[in-house]
């Protein structure tokens, strides 16, 4: 086996040093009734070349670009990723190192994460950001736990237009703790109804997502004011980080913690993971943050350097009183995001975000013109909801066969919204592809009407 370097001679001489006769003897401290007597029942080994064939075969059973044209986002977005990023991210000095516990020989990772923290904070308009979390759902959950810890209150109000799978994650984490999650209903225009907030006491946080699950941009000014009126943390979240290349950032609305998903920033879809959980806050709360943080410092000669810092918040020192149990996070994904933000720059991210918005607006207008209902009239970024006529499933299946994925049905999450689909357009979709989608929809639509 080419990953195992020992020769028979090596094994023999090392066993002699150890004082064991056979490799089995090495396990003498494992009681006999704990030892496995049979061989593991696993497939026989493949050569590298057999593995290539096997994996390529499986890879072909997946519907992906460029063959398939996706008009689907819902928390995972197809964006162009420059070859320079994939190439740099493959540098084994980054890939094959551990968490930078020994800063002198990990300055590459440490400076890169420090730069990520800075760019993430700038994107969100906040003062500090963490080194990374698992994904948007866990970032939001940990942000709410942070608000609970700081305020000493035990209830959070969560918009029903936060990604349904994020809300499910919150409930899973909160279940044993007894913290109360109150869901806020939505209004006819596709934004959060804050009416119930007034009735709630003991409120640690008010969380909304913007753009929300329907793609609508929330009135963050109003949500922030309402949260602060109640003495609660204002926690805006997001699933599409690229939106803040164009939209006013959460910090400008007075966010206490901004959090969400950074997958859009140069990270492949990869069937939903790994992704990038982002959390940012202001300096006054930085010692309460969950997760890793990199800070700038100096070495013995006064040269600039970077270290993992504020470790006293963390589990290996604070044990059960830690601000989080997170240890391994998604560092390499944070690096990808930093490379992506650096490649775009202020000029590029603006232009790219604008393209996403304008293309989605184009598709929206074409669908409207073809007689489809756009039920929510709030402005959107690159996603929006369309109401298709009853019996649309057949059209959906027909379009899938033409290798077009016309959005995601949201009725499993919102049973009251039968035939409602969430569509997404990023810079990867061309006008021609959008026109083709509309044609495909209209042909079937006229048939359905007949």
């Amino acid at each position, binding site marked *: 086996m080419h990953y*195992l370097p020992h020769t028979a001679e090596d094994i023999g*001489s*090392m066993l002699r040093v*150890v004082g064991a006769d056979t490799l089995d003897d090495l*396990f003498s401290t494992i*009681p006999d009734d704990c030892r496995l007597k049979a061989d*593991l029942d*696993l497939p026989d*080994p*493949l*050569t590298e070349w057999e*593995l*290539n064939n096997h994996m390529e*075969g499986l*890879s072909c059973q*997946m*519907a992906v670009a460029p063959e398939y044209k996706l008009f*689907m986002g819902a928390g995972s977005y197809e964006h162009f990723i420059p070859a320079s990023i994939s190439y740099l991210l493959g540098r*084994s*000095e*980054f890939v094959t*190192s*551990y968490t*930078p516990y*020994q*800063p002198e020989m990990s300055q*590459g990772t440490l400076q890169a994460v*420090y*730069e990520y923290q*800075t*760019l993430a904070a700038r994107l969100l*308009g906040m003062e500090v950001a963490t080194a990374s979390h698992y994904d*948007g759902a866990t970032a939001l959950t940990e942000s709410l736990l942070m608000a609970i810890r700081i305020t000493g209150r035990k209830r959070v109000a969560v918009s029903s237009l936060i990604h349904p*799978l994020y809300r499910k*994650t919150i409930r899973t984490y909160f279940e*044993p*703790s007894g913290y109360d999650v109150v869901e806020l209903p939505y209004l006819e225009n596709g934004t959060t109804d804050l009416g119930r907030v007034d009735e709630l006491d003991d409120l640690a946080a008010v969380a909304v997502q913007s753009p929300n699950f329907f793609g609508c941009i929330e009135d963050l000014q109003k949500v922030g004011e309402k949260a602060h009126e109640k003495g609660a943390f204002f926690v805006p979240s997001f699933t599409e980080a690229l939106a803040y290349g*164009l939209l*006013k950032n959460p910090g400008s609305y007075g966010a206490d913690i901004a959090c969400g998903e950074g997958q859009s920033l140069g990270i492949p879809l*990869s069937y*939903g*993971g790994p992704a990038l959980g982002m959390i940012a806050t202001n300096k006054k709360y*930085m010692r309460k943050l969950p997760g890793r943080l990199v800070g700038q*410092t100096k*070495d013995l*000669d006064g040269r600039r350097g970077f270290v993992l810092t504020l470790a006293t918040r963390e589990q290996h020192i604070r044990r059960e009183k830690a601000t989080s149990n997170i*240890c*391994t*996070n*998604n560092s*390499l994904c944070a690096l990808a995001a930093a*490379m992506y933000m*650096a490649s775009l*720059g202020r*000029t*590029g991210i603006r232009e*790219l975000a604008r*393209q996403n918005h304008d293309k989605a607006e184009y598709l929206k207008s074409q669908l409207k013109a073809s007689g489809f209902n756009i039920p929510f009239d709030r*402005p959107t970024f690159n996603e929006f909801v369309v109401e298709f006529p009853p019996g649309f499933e057949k059209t959906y299946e027909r379009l*899938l066969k033409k290798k077009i994925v016309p959005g995601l049905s949201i009725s499993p999450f919102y049973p009251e919204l039968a035939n409602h689909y969430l569509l997404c357009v990023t810079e990867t979709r061309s006008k021609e592809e959008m026109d083709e989608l509309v044609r495909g929809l209209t042909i079937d639509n006229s048939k359905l009407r007949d």
Partner: protein
Amino acid sequence: MTELMGTTGLILNEPLLWEKGKKGRCGFSLPKQDVEPSPLDPELTGEGPDFPDLSEVDVVRHYTRLSQWNFGLDTGMYPLGSCTMKYNPKTNERQASLPGFSGAHPLLPDTLSQGALRIMFELEQYLTEITGMDAATLQPAAGAQGELTGMLLVYAWHQSRGSRRSKIIVPDTAHGTNPSSAALCGYRPVAVKSNDKGILSAEVVSEVMDEDTAGIMITNPNTLGLFEENILEIADIVHSMGGLVYCDGANMNAVMGVAQMGKIGVDVMQLNLHKTFSTPHGGGGPGSGPVCVKKDLEPFLPVPRIVQKEGRYALDENRPDSIGKLQAFYGNFGVMLKAYCYIRTMGPENLKKASQFAVLNANYIKEMLKDTLHLPFDRPCMHECVFSDKNQTPDHITTLDMAKRLMDYGFHPPTIYFPLVVQGAIMVEPTETESKEDIDRYIEAFKAIVDEAKHDPDLLRQAPHKCKVRRLDETTAARKPCLAG
């Protein structure tokens, strides 16, 4: 030593991203705008983030230079105890980047995701076989989230039986994340001490186990690198009081094909794919922390579950007793598939060999260095061995000094000051992928350093000398944090 491995080469200084570049540059091939502009309401429009404008060359040089300041497993031996820094096969990186996997959207219909679902389904099966358990979930994103998942499963199992318990037993040789994972579940960790052999005795467990205790979180092999020999008896005690046994499986690399935790009393355990199953650690993740359970706990596993019917794979959300979701989608698929490739290329025999060689290498280092460094528990170890700096105390040299000096010799230091049960701990885990020559060089380096400690202690106190930077002021970093530029 003939020649030191560590040397100084030409590496370049590099400023912070925003200290370079020029407004108007861009390192991204912007797509053509093929639709009419449609301005957004100015009320909602921001100014755009204050990012530096850099060219593609600026970005490429920046990260290439940064990467050269890092030491990775591909650079040299990285015997970080408890972290299983084994070789990360390159073919696995290739497979993960195949367009069908890297470009797959998680919400595609099952019929269009058969390849990914099959990989996940089979990986679950392989992991349950390796651990001797009955079912697995791949959803947890890392070891600590696996621990949390395990605790949530324990909680849900107790609740389904109408029992609410408030405590959990955590030995002093458990992983550092265990108490905080338990606390997230509302459990109060009850610490128990390992005995003079470095393992847990059944008696101490029996003293604290009661009907208000949900179970035990045991790391096996433990963080001293020792097999918990009394596991069967301990499991009996815990089970007899209605508790469950959780095993932190981060150290599974010692016992693949040798012992199956599911057959020796463990009810639930997590695995770290980024340790035992060769996926790269990425300088701090992404990892993957699947959880394996016995049959009784299966109904509580996170949703969706992957099911197979007549050769087709599907996601099943309909599990009323499930604890729910640990993250938005299915876990770190990109990591899982590397572990899948690893298991497929290794096969059962080589996985067992991997554990045997990992244990052989650790015992070899232990024997070769035990006259040089203080060895608190002189017994056969598993995949890692723990020394201390006790012998160097008269020279006023600490574990930290020796660790830093190892860098000059071209090695990544071992894990230091952990586990806490050994003062000044030096925890060495060579893994099976290091050759005898590299291990011998490491041993020689350690001996040379211990010699330097006697004759030139300042060389150690000032170390490292050959890295990009010298020792860093961590105190000021924490007192006056500067977390963003």
